[in-house]
């Protein structure tokens, strides 16, 4: 951040902070309780498939919450987050395979690298408005896909596979046991939620909402739009890449299409959009509904070869978008308007 904004906004922020601090504490307690509850679920469920579905759900929850930091709070609708996801996945595997370095470090390396890329891209792209920005993000992710697809050293189209080894926490490789993945990704979801929670309360969050609600008014208050978007972008990219690294370890095989493809960008965005963008609970509600639905429809009606599950999935997106433009999270809300969700 470049400088401290002048008094009017600071005092406004402080007043809001004080007014909502009790509600914020309640939110935090709910999140911690939900996490604790979720942590107990594997005690009762041992089915591998159910575990897989839950792990994926939590992974997309974390991803969508990371996306929410930029897309929801800052209003930059990116449909190209696969680039950060892919960078995280490739960095983690490459650092491990080619350098023999622990994938735990690899995930952080991927995160930092993705943040740099996000800053570099943000420098050029944040001057684009609305649909121009969205389309640029799609194109940039597609360009990254093409580059990796032609990068022989990184396996090109063959992709990279983690060697088949014994179960180990050091490499986060487990054959049949899904519990470690579950707890890792649960912790990651909580972490991304806490970041969003912290942003909502912190001054940054007020600035970003100001940027989103009315850029001109915010600028006149002295908020540096550009810097705040850059910060949002770096944080968002970091956690997206960490989740990408997790995905690589979880599946143990990556290729350009499966980590840089448009379908990843879409699955990162959809939970937040349908759950409620720019809200704390939107990504969670969206992911919990959408990911199991996608998995179950594919598993139990997808094998027929008809397009039924595409129809179900697409129709659901249309219906939710039309009936609940502010997201499903609004169903749980009594009278309070969706804060900062105005476009």
């Amino acid at each position, binding site marked *: 951040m470049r400088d401290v904004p002048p008094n009017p906004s600071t005092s406004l922020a402080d007043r809001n902070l004080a007014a909502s601090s009790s509600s914020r504490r309640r939110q935090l307690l709910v999140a911690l309780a939900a996490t604790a509850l979720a942590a107990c679920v594997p005690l009762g469920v041992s089915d591998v498939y159910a575990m897989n579905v839950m792990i994926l759900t939590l992974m997309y929850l974390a991803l969508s919450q990371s996306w929410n930091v930029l897309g929801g709070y800052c209003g930059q609708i990116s449909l190209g987050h696969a680039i950060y996801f892919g960078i995280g996945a490739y960095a983690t595997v490459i650092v491990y395979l080619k350098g023999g370095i622990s994938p735990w470090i690899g995930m952080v390396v991927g995160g930092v690298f993705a943040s740099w890329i996000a800053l570099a891209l943000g420098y050029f792209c944040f001057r684009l408005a609305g649909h121009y920005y969205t389309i640029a993000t799609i194109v940039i992710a597609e360009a990254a896909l093409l580059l990796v*697809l032609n990068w022989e050293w990184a396996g090109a189209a063959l992709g990279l596979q983690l060697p088949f080894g014994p179960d180990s926490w050091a490499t986060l490789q487990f054959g049949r046991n899904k519990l470690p993945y579950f707890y890792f990704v649960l912790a990651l979801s909580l972490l991304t939620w806490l970041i969003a929670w912290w942003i909502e309360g912190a001054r940054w969050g007020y600035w970003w909402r100001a940027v989103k609600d009315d850029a001109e008014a915010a600028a006149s208050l002295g908020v540096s739009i550009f810097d705040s978007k850059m910060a949002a972008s770096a944080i968002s990219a970091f956690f997206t890449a960490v989740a990408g690294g997790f995905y690589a370890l979880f599946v143990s095989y990556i290729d350009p299409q499966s980590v840089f493809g448009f379908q990843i960008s879409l699955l990162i965005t959809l939970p937040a959009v349908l759950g409620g963008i720019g809200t704390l609970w939107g990504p969670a509600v969206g992911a919990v509904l959408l990911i199991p639905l996608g998995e179950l429809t594919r598993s139990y009606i997808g094998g027929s070869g008809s397009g039924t599950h595409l129809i179900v999935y697409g129709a659901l997106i249309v219906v939710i978008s039309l009936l609940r433009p502010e997201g499903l999270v609004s169903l749980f809300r009594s009278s309070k308007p969706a804060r900062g969700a105005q476009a």
Partner: protein
Amino acid sequence: MLNRRDLLVSSASAALISAAGSPAFGQSSVEDVKIGVIYPFTGSGAQVGVDARFALDTAADIINEAHDIDLPLAKGKGLSNLGGAKVRLVYADHQADPQKGRSEAERLVTQDSVAALLGTYYSSVAAVVSQVAERYQLPFVAAESSSPSLHVKGLKYFFRPGPHDEMYSIAMFDFIKHVQQKFPGTGATVALFYEDTLFGNDTSKVQKRLAEEQKVEVVADIKYRANSPSLSSEVQLLKSKNPDIILATSYTTDAILFVRTMRELGFKPKGIISQNGGFIEPAFLSAVGEHANGIISRASFVLDLATKRPSLKAVNDLFKKRSGKDLNDNTAREFMALIILADAINRAKSIKGPDIEAALRATDMPGASTIMPWDRVKFGADGQNSSIKPVMMQYGDGEYRTVWPEALATRPLKWPLT
């Protein structure tokens, strides 16, 4: 919320498990042998899955019901050594996504308790499914995924009855040698034309190596983006190099556009040898019609083998009744994969993974017991069947016929094309 989600998942899956697990009323006490089958059933590769399903259902029918066909397990009903148990196929959709392939493989193994896995067409998915099989110690039979990277990983439970891309490419270069000798002055230069996927990459690597070894000059090396809206620059590049032979590796969509574009740009190559793929698909043949004439493809299966493999006609008739199509290289390999797997399960007299693995490893099936032009089915330590000699077939008069090796040929080779 997390609670509700979990409830949804577990209750839904519990309902499905109980539905799938309860034997149908009135059946004998012998339990079905379940085999997990993983293919793409949605997305751009969906047709492959749909066709595979026809082939595998045909094979299951031949195993489960009595048929007068000279194939293993065809005569009796079910698996005789397991009290006549029936083979039941449990299908899953991987959408060409390795993560989904992994998840579905694990579901089939843990929820449906399948005895073995079969699939997957896409080699990227096969790479992941073969790992799951290894973890759970049950066999995975790769019916047609042909990446050479699959069998070199030291996996115990991986089996591939069909050839891999390297064997195919070697056969293609043997064929080129044959052409050079028989038609002097042709086949000195080749151009590689391949898509930017695993299929294209694997193939082109081997082809470049073989070309160097055999001193065949590679005049153009063209990797193109799959499903491109236009291939005119690519074809123009080929045309400007005027190679003797184009070695093409493409799926159906690009194969259609490639042949059409060559025609539109007035380019008549002297020879096209394709790495199977899209060039043998009915959709391709009907799209380009007579312009497919003269195209050569490597194959591990040709329909005109019927004279040498009497069971083939009967199988093809059964398959055609279901699908409305003739068997092709993919569907024939899928069909055979299930027969070979079921034969091993029958000999193992058990549905335990390690027992089936041992039985598969002991497999020694003469070529005459298959519908393929293979010498035999016998797996090496790496799980690869090495007793295969791919053949070359050429399109003409509305069908592909074997043209090489000459001992198997049913039509003389037409060469060069222009």
